[in-house]
């Protein structure tokens, strides 16, 4: 306390706080205002304005965020929704939601209409681009065929097996490598070299080793998705907050408990992002393997339809692969939101 402090007045905020009582209430009010505004600010773009205090205090990530945008939770720091909150926000969201949906449907219809017209008017040779209505009709006929569902089943089986192998291997390896500085530095050059190798370069090898059996598709799928997941897990393990880690240490948490309560929750959003990316890549590679190598599935059917000249069937099958892709995306997002429902959007950017 300095001599300037008037006697009797408590000075909880340091030497200058109680110089002027009016000023003090002013500051008090400012603080309250700031505190009131803060929860809303969090929903905005935190990516560039993460202040160390909130991250270190770790009070945010434990709070569920029901208003989280439907995009990836780990990335939603970048989606920047509006800052006001409460029922008004919900109403606005709902209203905008309906308008957006209608416009989206209009966009899809417009696309199909353009396609139809391009073909019907003969701008593009209708033999090579049959009208949209024909392709969609063929798609619906496919829904009644056992052969179609068998192809879908084959594709999904390869996708699923590939994902399980890749995600398991990448997660285990990622945690092992990520938690040791030595291993991380030791493996870095190899990972950085192997990761950009395009998986399709392995197609000839797969054909030689496994022919048209399901293993050749699995080889490509696992190779491609493995890196997606591994890199994300490595980022995630590296992102563990130092203060949280030290806190856990001083509270006497052992290595296993730290892995469970500090490293794992930090890494989970990254892991889920990796799994979501890997899911899309795995589908691409499954279809590609079927298309080029001829492993059973939708891709092989497309190749057959194309070389057999039944172009309507080809377009119908392509629409089917697109729908499969959308479906996988949606399911992965739902899973991600379920798994990360406890996590609010404070993590800094994930995709690098």
């Amino acid at each position, binding site marked *: 306390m300095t001599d300037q402090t008037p006697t009797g007045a408590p000075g909880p905020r340091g030497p200058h706080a109680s110089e002027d009582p009016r000023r003090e209430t002013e500051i008090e009010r400012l603080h309250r205002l700031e505190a009131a505004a803060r929860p809303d600010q969090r929903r905005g773009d935190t990516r560039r304005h993460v202040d160390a205090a909130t991250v270190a205090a770790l009070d945010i990530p434990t709070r569920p965020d029901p208003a989280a945008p439907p995009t990836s939770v780990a990335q939603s720091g970048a989606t920047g929704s509006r800052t006001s909150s409460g029922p008004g926000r919900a109403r606005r969201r709902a209203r905008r939601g309906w308008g957006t949906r209608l416009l989206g449907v209009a966009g899809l219809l417009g696309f199909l209409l353009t396609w139809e017209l391009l073909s019907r008017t003969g701008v593009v040779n209708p033999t090579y681009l049959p009208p949209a209505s024909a392709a969609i009709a063929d798609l619906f006929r496919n829904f009644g065929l056992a052969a179609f569902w068998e192809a879908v089943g084959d594709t999904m089986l390869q996708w699923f097996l590939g994902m399980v192998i890749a995600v398991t291997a990448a997660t285990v390896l990622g945690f092992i490598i990520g938690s040791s500085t030595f291993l991380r530095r030791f493996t*870095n050059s190899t990972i950085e070299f192997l990761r950009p190798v395009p998986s*399709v370069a392995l197609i000839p090898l797969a054909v030689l080793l496994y022919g048209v059996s399901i293993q050749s598709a699995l080889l490509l799928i696992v190779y491609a998705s493995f890196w997606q997941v591994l890199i994300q897990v490595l980022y995630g393990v590296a992102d563990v907050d130092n203060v949280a880690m030290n806190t856990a240490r001083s509270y006497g948490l052992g290595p296993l408990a730290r892995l469970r309560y500090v490293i794992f929750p930090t890494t989970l959003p990254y892991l889920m992002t990796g799994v979501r990316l890997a899911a899309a890549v795995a589908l691409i590679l499954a279809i590609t393997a079927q298309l080029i190598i001829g492993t059973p599935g939708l891709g092989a059917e497309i190749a057959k339809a*194309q070389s057999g000249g039944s172009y309507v069937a080809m377009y119908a099958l392509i629409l089917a692969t697109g729908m499969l*892709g959308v479906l996988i995306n949606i399911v992965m997002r739902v899973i991600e939101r379920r798994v990360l429902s406890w996590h609010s959007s404070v993590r800094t950017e994930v995709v690098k």
Partner: protein
Amino acid sequence: MKTLKSLLYIVGLPVILLVLWYLATAFGEKNFFVPTPALLAETFVETWTWDRMTTDVFPSLVRLFWGILGSIVIGMVGGLLIGSVRWLRALLEPTMEFFRAIPPTVLIPVLMLLIGIGDDMKVAVIIAGAVWPILLNTIEGVRAMDEVLSDTTHTYGIKGFNRVRYLILPSAMPQIMAGIRQSLSIALILMVISEMFAASSGLGFTIVQFQRSFAIPEMWSGIVLLGIIGVLLSFVFQLVERVVLRWYHGLREIENAA
């Protein structure tokens, strides 16, 4: 001493793996499918002569370059436009999501029918697959603009080109670069696949040719060459990214250090 240590870190694991590979192929039972490292290196030098480089590799790389350039231009221009106009975004978003979900390789048969089998088709295939990550990331980046900055530029009356140049582009750039990074690997995949599917020259074609004639070491050398191209591509990208996003990485370092 310090540089020696970091050098050891870089070459340590690759050397161990190479030695393992050598031991496994040279002393184990003869494996028809896997050549020894020495044989592979020898074949690599023999196979990828200057002649073959000019007939097969460079045309592929030129197609790859045009494909990537095309996707970046289309993706960024389209993304800036769609990202800044709300109703346009709402109109196109589901359609774009659908197109992105289509595995890009199935577009090869379609574009083959529509455009024919030529360089155009291959560039079109690359663009058709690689444009989506850039486009969607640009849209997302434009949407995620900092509101305070956006309001500030409004207040200062910064409009039109200046707004794009000084506000929208920089704030979307980290996301755009993330999109380009994804696109690069897709573009490379599509280059190879389009040549495997229908071509009479090019890297993908040559490798499949080797495989069909059971020229195993040659095939491996092709795989290695593809790998090298992939690594070089990502290396060049990292250099570009470091320059373009220098300010952003600096900012994040400060945030992380705090």
